[in-house]
């Protein structure tokens, strides 16, 4: 390609894949905004992860676990009935809900649990919102015989009870967090505080692409198995790359894992869907990329919901996993580079998508994932039947049955 004038797009195209830099910066986003106490552990983790990434034994062990313990590769399923109903693009579901523990979270926890052992740390802590990351952490720890403490907002303990019970069954200690909004954000705060005191022998398995460097990069890498598989499966199923990919975004780990391997494929349109909650008014949603602005939260610089004084705003989503005021820094980078489109979907639209997928395909989908499904069905209708749209079906909906009944005033 020859152009006379400098092409800003070409420069940003080239840059999009080469992140983060050594300081953990995705463009201006990311970095490390944490107390000095945690620096040594973050440095150690960065070094150990870099070594593990190059170590064929580590990769082989992780791949074996992903295959035989998790059940990967997860299928890419053609939702033919759904596609026909909508009359637009062919809809394909990347079935992360079929993984062991029922969501994509296990891809990351097994990787980080292996790193915990490599660093000779003897205890694991984790935060969780919907409980899927908590369950995946408890599972990885039970598998390797590591003690595990999971911090979970008291409100989330209430609305995701089945996952709390599962974690305890696998020997994890679930500590309800009563401070602040009693949701995911407060669970992250408590886990960080635990880590401040226990950092010398404890690894903190962060469950999303958030937090200080190297977490956003490392969690993205562990989750990228989703996008790598999906890419191959698209080529073998319909002979080309998909036209559009849609994923939900809370902290953004399933979306980052799905999008990352497609970032350089400029023909692929990618859409991230945040929690629109009850509407656009402050406090009614959890959509920092849609309504927020760049700021510092939980160790990195990224879009965030904050008031004009820098205090974190209250957010709302009916889904515990998306009920978070921040988002991973790489999403902020992709947004500003216009590589990924971000939009939001209200609680009621997501609930509608739950029913639609349940009745047309026989799949109960996690409330988080329903946000992606709702937006994807809208987009699919604007596309033609010879086009292909992939939804990252990040989690299954069994955990939400009781909460759904409560939201609808039905008996469970």
């Amino acid at each position: 390609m020859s152009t006379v004038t400098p092409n800003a797009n070409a420069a940003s195209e080239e840059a999009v894949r080469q992140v983060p830099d050594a300081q953990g910066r995705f463009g201006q986003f990311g970095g490390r905004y944490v107390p000095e106490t945690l620096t040594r552990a973050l440095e150690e983790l960065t070094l150990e992860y870099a070594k593990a990434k190059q170590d064929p034994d580590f990769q082989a062990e992780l791949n074996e676990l992903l295959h035989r313990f998790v059940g990967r590769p997860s299928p890419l399923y053609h939702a033919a009935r759904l596609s026909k109903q909508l009359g637009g693009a062919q809809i394909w579901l990347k079935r992360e809900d079929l993984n062991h523990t029922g969501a994509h979270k296990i891809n990351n926890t097994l990787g980080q649990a292996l790193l915990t052992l490599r660093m000779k740390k003897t205890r694991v802590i984790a935060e969780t919102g919907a409980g899927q990351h908590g369950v995946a952490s408890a599972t990885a720890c039970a598998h390797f015989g590591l003690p595990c403490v999971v911090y979970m907002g008291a409100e989330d303990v209430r609305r995701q009870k089945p996952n709390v019970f599962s974690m305890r069954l696998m020997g994890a200690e679930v500590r309800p967090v009563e401070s602040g909004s009693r949701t995911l954000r407060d669970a992250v705060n408590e886990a960080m505080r635990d880590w401040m005191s226990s950092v010398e022998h404890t690894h903190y398995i962060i469950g999303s692409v958030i937090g200080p460097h190297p977490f956003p990069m490392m969690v993205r890498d562990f989750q990228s198995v989703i996008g790598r598989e999906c890419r191959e499966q698209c080529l073998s199923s319909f002979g080309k790359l998909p036209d559009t990919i849609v994923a939900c975004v809370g902290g953004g780990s399933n979306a980052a894992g799905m999008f990352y391997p497609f970032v350089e494929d400029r023909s692929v349109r990618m859409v991230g869907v945040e929690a629109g909650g009850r509407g656009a008014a402050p406090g009614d949603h959890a959509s920092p990329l849609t309504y927020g602005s760049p700021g510092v939260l939980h160790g990195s610089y990224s879009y965030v919901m904050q008031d004009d004084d820098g205090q974190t705003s209250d957010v709302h989503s009916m889904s515990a996993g998306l009920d978070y005021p921040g988002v991973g820094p790489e999403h902020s980078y992709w947004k500003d580079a216009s590589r990924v489109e971000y939009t939001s979907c209200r609680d009621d639209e997501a609930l509608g998508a739950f029913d639609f997928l349940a009745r047309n395909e026989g799949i109960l989908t996690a409330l988080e994932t329903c946000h992606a499904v709702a937006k994807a069905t809208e987009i699919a209708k604007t596309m033609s039947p010879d086009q292909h749209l992939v939804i990252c079906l990040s989690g299954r909906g069994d955990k939400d049955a009781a909460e759904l009944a409560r939201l609808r005033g039905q008996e469970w």
Partner: protein
Amino acid sequence: MTAIDDLFTRLRASGKKALMPFITAGDPNLPFTSKVLLRLQELGCSMAEVGIPYSDPIADGPVIQASYTRALANKVKLDQIFHQIAETRRSLSMPLVSMVSYAIIHRHGPTRYIESAKAAGFSGAIVPDLLVEESAQFAKLCRERDFNLVQLVTPTTPQDRALKIAEQSSGFLYFVSVTGITGERTQLPEGLIDRVGWLRERTNLPICIGFGISKPEHVRLLSPVCDGLIVGSAIVRCLEKACESEANAIASASELVSSLLAALES
């Protein structure tokens, strides 16, 4: 040269050490914060650290977290804090340093933060979530405006890194005594005195020790190796009672501070 630089020059010349209480601005309201600051000066504290309430303080234990929550529940804003401090400043001769999250500094704009804080009468800032790697730009803005940026060294900081932090810090160096969050401790970790001593031989910057310090014996033990001691949670806990009786809260904090000052003199 800031008021903090000046203070430590004077203290060193006379062989004295600083006691630096930490209080939370606006807990439970701003007029009370002013009363407490005036009382601390009257008791003989060399300077004070004023915590700017933040919604997500990950380095703080339950006592300081709760004080931030109380202040924010009353909707205290940074501009109001600066306004109140500016009013009180006229009756205060001791230097003040703000303890503030970078989340707040970023939202207000680093230059605006420094200039407003300085105009209100703060001589510097401690920014617990701004690591030395991330601080170059902010440190430069501080230097240009003769405003101290106090950086922290912790037990997990390797020696070469501690030296680098000491080079970048101004006013004083905040030596965190324990691996953990703020809060009173019965015992302080072994090796603390040696670690502070090692660093003190290698920097001219005054060193103040904080986190976990709450008892006269801590003060007696640590004051010989440092330039000052920071006491936070123990004082904030005394001041919690202000919701019921301001007089009792101030009396209880005064008693604690007096006992710590007496230990410093002995």
